[in-house]
């Protein structure tokens, strides 16, 4: 069985507040699962229960076939975890901090030196190894947290906002690192950055109000967008108006939007009815009328729009049930 994480009927209540309200999840080896959701949706709380920091109010978590509640040490041994905000002991240097984590993880001698060396190389920490962590930049602090998480080459990696506070180059490095490690591990990341889902995740789940609203590949996620299969073309502004009119009356076109670009160009987007593919019809149109176009592309769908729709629907459902 390659099922490395298995979450069943997970609930967490803090007094009257329901933070997690029945989540079921399975993550297999080779998967990178993205947790998406607004702030306070229950992403971090779910991660804290998977890693055994918080005990669930109800439900169970198995990691590498170890029940986190009954056999916490065995489960924690095969998890690498980057908590939210990448906490670390500020007075320690990355060298002493990683050494401490390696000791607790039971690494000794050559194995320990190798593990620390590898993690430091992968994360690019060499330059700051002997500075106190509290004096490091936010990006380096986050990287120290990442190094600590991957130190023992765990089968399961749980990363709470791994790229938060990193600059675009560092983000790219971390995403590359996650993709490199992916085939051998089950990885769960949470993020606010929707492009990250496309960039690294093999599957995404949306959590809002402590519930799982969606689970699927990034492409399936994007397919929920009104813009899925929409066709965008850029044309000179003098012919844009007639193009808009022509496209609007095509049978499968629901709506036409346009935005003005620099350099006298207008970008016209035709949104299809029910996400039908319309790129063939539009190409025929272009040939018939002999329009001169600068670019043409089919949209996979807009993640931010799907995210907004799904999570705001959840909010209104939540409010209805409360009243």
């Amino acid at each position, binding site marked *: 069985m390659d099922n490395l994480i298995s979450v069943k009927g997970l609930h967490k209540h*803090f007094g009257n507040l329901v933070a997690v309200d029945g989540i079921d999840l399975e993550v297999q080896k080779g998967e990178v699962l993205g947790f998406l959701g607004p702030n306070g949706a229950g992403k971090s709380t779910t991660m804290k229960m998977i890693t055994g920091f*918080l005990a669930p109010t109800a439900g169970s978590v198995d990691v590498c076939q170890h029940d986190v509640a009954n056999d916490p040490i*065995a489960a*924690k041994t095969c998890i690498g975890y980057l908590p*939210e905000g990448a906490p*670390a*002991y500020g007075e*320690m240097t990355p060298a002493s901090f990683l050494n401490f984590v390696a000791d607790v993880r039971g690494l000794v001698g050559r194995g320990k030196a190798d593990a620390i060396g590898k993690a430091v190389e992968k994360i690019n920490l060499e330059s700051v190894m002997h500075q106190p962590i509290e004096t490091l930049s936010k990006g380096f602090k986050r990287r120290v947290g990442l190094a600590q998480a991957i130190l023992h080459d765990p089968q399961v990696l749980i990363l709470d906002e791994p790229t938060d506070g990193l600059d675009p180059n560092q983000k790219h490095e971390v995403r590359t690192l996650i993709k490199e490690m992916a085939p051998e591990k089950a990885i769960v990341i949470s993020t606010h950055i929707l492009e990250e889902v496309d960039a690294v995740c093999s599957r995404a789940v949306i959590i809002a109000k402590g519930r799982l609203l969606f689970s699927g590949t990034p492409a399936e996620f994007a397919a929920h967008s009104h813009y899925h299969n929409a066709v965008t073309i850029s044309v000179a502004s003098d012919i844009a108006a007639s193009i808009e009119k022509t496209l609007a009356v095509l049978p499968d076109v629901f709506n036409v939007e346009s935005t003005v670009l620099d350099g006298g160009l207008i970008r016209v987007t035709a949104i299809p009815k029910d996400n039908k593919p319309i790129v063939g019809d539009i190409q025929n149109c272009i040939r018939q009328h002999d329009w001169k176009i600068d670019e043409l592309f089919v949209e996979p769908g807009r993640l931010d729009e799907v995210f907004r729709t799904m999570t705001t629907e959840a909010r209104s459902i939540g409010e209805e049930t409360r009243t």
Partner: protein
Amino acid sequence: MSRTLIILKRELNAYFATPVAYVFIVIFLLLTGVFTFHIGELYERNQADLEPFFRFHPWLYMLLIPAISMRLWSEERKAGTLELLMTLPISLVEAVIGKFLAAWCFTAIALMLTFPVWITINYLGDPDNTVILAGYLGSLLLAGGCLAIGSFISALTKNQVIAFVISFVICFAFNLSGFPLVLDMFSSWAPQAIVDVISSFSFLTHFESILKGVVDIRDIIFFGSLIAFFLYANVLAIEAKKGS
């Protein structure tokens, strides 16, 4: 290396990584000096023992030990490192004991640095060194009791100042529990048995009997069970509070 020892080592290094350790040791040595030679009048007494040195330890510890213990758990909770620590393959009991032992080792180091007092008294006279050894043992047990209380209080709050003040008050109460100030509050309404129990919790009574060179097993059990009780409470406090 056992995981308790790994925690102990990290915590002990953490003390010396900041000025806290040095400030504490300097203040501790200064104050023991002042108490021993000026207030305790070690020279003027003309007796070859360290009673004036040890006599003030309960009052010194009441003030200084909370400064050592206040960061033990408050800091972890405030900085979020508790989450890191508790998701490493280590049990809470190991972590609580490791941290407590680190703080205890630290006070033992501070206590050992008072050795010039011992050299002085041996140079000046011919003291009974077994009594002095018993004094050091008693002092260490007393420090352990205060530390266990402080560690427990530190687990209850993210605020180190609050941890300090409350630990100070509780150590003060334990020091005074054999005195009329505390006992009078109870003797008017509580049965004599309860008053006796309260007065038997006095740090001073147990400490003073050890100081006389009489290492009674009951005094050792008293401090040992006090430490065990507060460390157990410490574990429960972290369990209950870690999510908040």
